[in-house]
């Protein structure tokens, strides 16, 4: 093949195939440029950067929706819809489409939320929204990465704006400290991850996930070169460090409470929802990408080798999930600051999500339908978690604006003055505990059911049983600290120095909180529709 045809082939592939399926990311990238332009050009000064960002996010959501429709129409055909973009760096399939839609929709909701809650102000708006849009772009790439180099780039692209966001409240010592801590931790994790990637690439000779899986299956399956296997497992563990940092999994969670406490509640909402969704999607990508190969290619030694690879990954993720969930819930118990409590709650929920990832990994290659359901459970969890946690942080922000405090103790007797907010808080926190008839219960039910499925039909059955029991116990533990917030709000008496606010019939902030809390109830009762989309996300694991 001469150079000319190679170039024209690449251009053809990029323009005809890749770019049209990349349009959500392109829209976000264009919005970043527009937001910056709007500030630089005096002609466009009148444009509010938030509105520009919101327009971009809505546009991206619309494209994401259209892409999902395309996928939905093609899924029934064998193998589903799978297209490698940019020469195999990215992959477009049902998981990409669903997670991207989720992120874009979250972005739109999130920008509305920040406009209502008042952080950032108009002056800082451009900086803030550029960072948020940029991080989201990185997260979209995380969800569709098909190449370890892209994994690293995407993680960094999502992380670096987050560091700046954590320190966004300029002049606040806690925020600066949080940002520094986050950045140092992040840099360390990134370094380790890059080292792990180079180890893997060195042994396998490629960074393209499907090729890696085939090569890895061959090496492990033959089982001759024990040194290579050693290096591979080490590389895998180091890669897991980078991922665990993004997921705030134990023992790489230390940044999480400090960042959440130091940064504004708005930033906590962004990190806890979007960042988590992208990291879970990336974890699923890696577990499936490294643990399975396309149908038919795996036979004999390669299949046995891949089973070993999956076994290793499932144990790493599963044990980390157990530790993360338990520690998150126990540590949340002693918190007095609401944002810190939510930070540990986020850690605990990352644990539940990783349980689902472990179950999906265990089922992959053994029970395709079960693996699809496990991924669907994760997607459903993320979908409901979006509303639950965004609502939780919105409540914190709204109350901060009213009470000038984020301490749980300052919420005492709130039910007397703001009953609506307390009802919304009850819905959200009880949903986070996972009690019916709220969405959090359904999410947990789906995760647990994929664990039970994995107990029944996989080689990792004992581990899955342990995870299931730990998950059950954790649900009970988590009851304490979520209920404590409700207890303070309802049982405790109103502090005497608090002036009862004039109860406005309808406020914008109240409307926002209600709009976020209603889906939590709705998806707890009528969850068939949302689960349909989640199943679509799972259908990539054929």
């Amino acid at each position, binding site marked *: 093949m001469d150079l000319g045809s190679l170039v024209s082939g690449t251009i053809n592939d990029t323009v005809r195939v890749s770019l049209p399926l990349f349009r959500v990311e392109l829209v976000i990238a264009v919005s970043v440029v527009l937001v910056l332009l709007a500030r630089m050009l005096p002609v466009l000064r009148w444009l509010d950067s938030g509105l520009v960002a919101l327009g971009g996010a809505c546009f991206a959501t619309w494209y994401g929706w259209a892409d999902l429709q395309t996928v939905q129409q093609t899924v029934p055909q064998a193998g589903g819809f799978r297209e490698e973009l940019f020469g195999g760096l990215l992959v477009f399939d049902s998981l990409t489409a669903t997670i991207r839609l989720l992120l874009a929709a979250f972005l739109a909701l999130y920008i509305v939320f920040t406009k209502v809650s008042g952080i950032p102000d108009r002056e800082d708006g451009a900086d803030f929204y550029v960072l948020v849009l940029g991080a989201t772009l990185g997260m979209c790439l995380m969800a569709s990465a098909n190449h370890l180099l892209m994994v690293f780039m995407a993680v960094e692209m999502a992380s670096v704006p987050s560091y700046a966001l954590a320190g966004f409240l300029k002049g606040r010592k806690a925020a600066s400290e949080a940002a520094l801590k986050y950045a140092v931790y992040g840099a360390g994790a990134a370094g380790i991850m890059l080292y792990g990637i180079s180890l893997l690439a060195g042994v396998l000779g490629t960074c393209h996930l499907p090729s890696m899986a085939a090569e890895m299956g061959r090496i492990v399956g033959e089982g001759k070169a024990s040194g290579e296997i050693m290096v591979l497992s080490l590389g895998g563990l180091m890669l897991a460090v980078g991922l665990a940092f993004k997921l705030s999994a134990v023992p790489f969670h230390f940044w999480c409470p400090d960042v959440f406490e130091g940064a504004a509640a708005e930033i906590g909402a962004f990190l806890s929802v979007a960042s988590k969704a992208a990291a879970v999607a990336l974890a699923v990508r890696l577990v499936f990408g490294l643990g399975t190969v396309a149908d038919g290619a795996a036979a004999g030694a390669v299949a046995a080798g891949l089973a070993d690879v999956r076994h290793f990954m499932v144990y790493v993720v599963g044990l980390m999930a157990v530790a993360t969930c338990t520690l998150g819930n126990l540590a949340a118990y002693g918190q007095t600051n609401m944002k810190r409590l939510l930070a540990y709650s986020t850690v605990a929920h990352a644990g539940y999500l990783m349980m689902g990832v472990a179950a999906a990994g265990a089922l992959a290659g053994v029970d395709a339908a079960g693996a699809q359901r496990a991924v669907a459970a994760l997607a459903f969890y993320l979908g409901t978690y979006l509303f639950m946690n965004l609502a939780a942080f919105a409540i914190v922000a709204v109350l901060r604006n009213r009470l000038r405090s984020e301490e749980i103790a300052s919420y005492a007797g709130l039910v007397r003055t703001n009953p609506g907010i307390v009802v919304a808080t009850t819905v959200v926190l009880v949903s986070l505990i996972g009690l019916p008839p709220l969405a959090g219960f359904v999410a947990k*039910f789906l995760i647990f059911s994929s664990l039970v499925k994995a107990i029944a039909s996989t080689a990792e059955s004992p581990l899955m049983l342990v995870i299931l029991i730990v998950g059950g116990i954790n649900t009970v533990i988590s009851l304490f600290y979520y209920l404590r917030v409700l207890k303070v709000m309802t049982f405790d008496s109103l502090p005497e120095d608090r002036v009862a606010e004039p109860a406005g019939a309808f406020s914008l902030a109240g409307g926002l909180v209600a709009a976020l809390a209603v889906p939590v109830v709705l998806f707890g009762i009528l969850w068939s529709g949302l689960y349909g989309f989640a199943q679509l996300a799972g259908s990539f694991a054929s």
Partner: protein
Amino acid sequence: MSPADALSQPALWPLSAIVFLPAIVAAVVALPVIPRAREELIRWITLATTAVVFLLSLWMAWPTLFGAPGPAQFTIGEAGMQLVVSKPWIPAFNIEYLLGVDGISMPLVVLTTFLSLLACAASWPITKHVKAYHVLFLLLETGMLGVFVSLDFFLFYVFWEVMLLPMYFLIGIWGGPRREYAAIKFFLYTLLGSVLMLLAILMLYFTSDLRMLSPEQLESAHVVSPAVEAAARADAVAAIKTAAEPIHTFNLLALAELGQLPNSPFAAAQVWGVSLEVLAFLLLLIGFVIKVPVVPVHTWLPDAHVEAPTPISMILAGVLLKLGGYGIIRICYPVCPGGGLTLAWLVCGLGVVSMVYGAFAALAQTDFKRMVAYSSVSHMGYVMLGLGVWSAVAGNEFRWDAWGQGVNGAMFQMLAHGFSSAGMFFMVGVLYDRVHHRNLNEFGGIFNRMPVYAALAVAIFFAGLGLPGLCGFIGEVLVTLSAWNYSRTLAAISAFTVILTAGYILWAIQRVYLGAEYKGPHGEALTPITRRELAIATPLVFLAILFGVAPQLLFNYVSPSVNRQVETLAEWTRQVRPDFPASPAIETVDAGVTRALAGE
């Protein structure tokens, strides 16, 4: 929904209305449309709602009460599931909106609506946050009724959990001095039980396979609606039978059919070397006995009962404890009969231990309400024993009739205890409202000060004691008689417990109602019983006497369903354990009950 659905499922709207009307009214009351200050209006709206729900359930349960019976009404004497409502809910998991009642659940539904009505009337003295109280109260009612009528395990679990949060707030906000502790303890215990239940539900679900059932079983379990045309039924059956993958189900009736198959999938599946039917039975049992409650997981009950406001204590004792017993009889035994057979000693043992422990603990109390709370533990022990002897294997003879007797007795005991314990808590509440203390040693002479109240109270306490002629007697005697066939020791212990019961109740009556004069605090407040209180107490006393004299009124509902379930399980036992020397007594279950009743 199409008119054809209304024809084939006549109970859709009535049954749904019974369950959801309280929740809908609660949502309306919660809106700012009704101002918080209009407390009297909120009270009347709630009372009217509970009254409507009660009348609806009565209309359903007593077909000839308002003229000719209609298709949406209960047929007394029919054993099977009636008035079944089936709508798809979450097709991806075969979760259905599946409701229905039989002789076991129908009386409990009426008991719930009746006690909710009375408890709502008893809520008039609540003056703190009236609006929130009534909203939570109505939500609680929806949860309780939903549990009794759900036939889908997922739906059952949802309703089971829906009760928790309203109860937590009702105890925690309107309770006594240690309310926060009591509320969280209640929540924690129940949630622990429910999580175990959820694990069992998931394990059963993923082991179940509808393809194993015959077309007749699929129809009787309402997997395939018997109401549609034959051709459509055949298609639906064929679709299930020819499926390539196992079809899982949450349908409780189908799970029961699967559990009773000779080649039950639950018996075959193993988890850590234990067969699933034993493990699931145990997990479910723990979930349910926490609610019953039995020793040693009863400790939430005295705290919750004592701290809860009077109407909530009535609901707790009258209905919530029954949910545990109902769960055992409806789910544990039919779905996991093997577990029930293996663990019969556990259920019976727990029953007898709670019976004796509760009675001794009640004797030791100085707090009136705490004494009544422990009496509930003791009385619910009879329910456990009665359910346990169900799978009785008596030394060398297997008596089917003893099973039926025990379960009928347990069911009757549950209903009777619903009336008597709610009555007892109300009676304590009447006194507490006046003198603001519950110390048994500071009472005395109430008979002189409040004669009408004292007479009613003594009648209710005698019903709790189990005096012949009152409702508490029938259940206890049937359970004790049936236990004789299982273990003479346990039967003897349970018979002797009656003496302890008589001890603490008579002693309490003596200390509170008898005596020359009241010397405790706030003596001036001992005013005669009000008309509202009279309107609550009289029906309870009347029913306690009525069901004591004419237990057949309840057995007409309960026995056919209970007997059929027992017979089915007896047949099942003969198949799986042919080595048991069985007396050919299957057809004499009815006769056994009648004999026991005649011999009283």
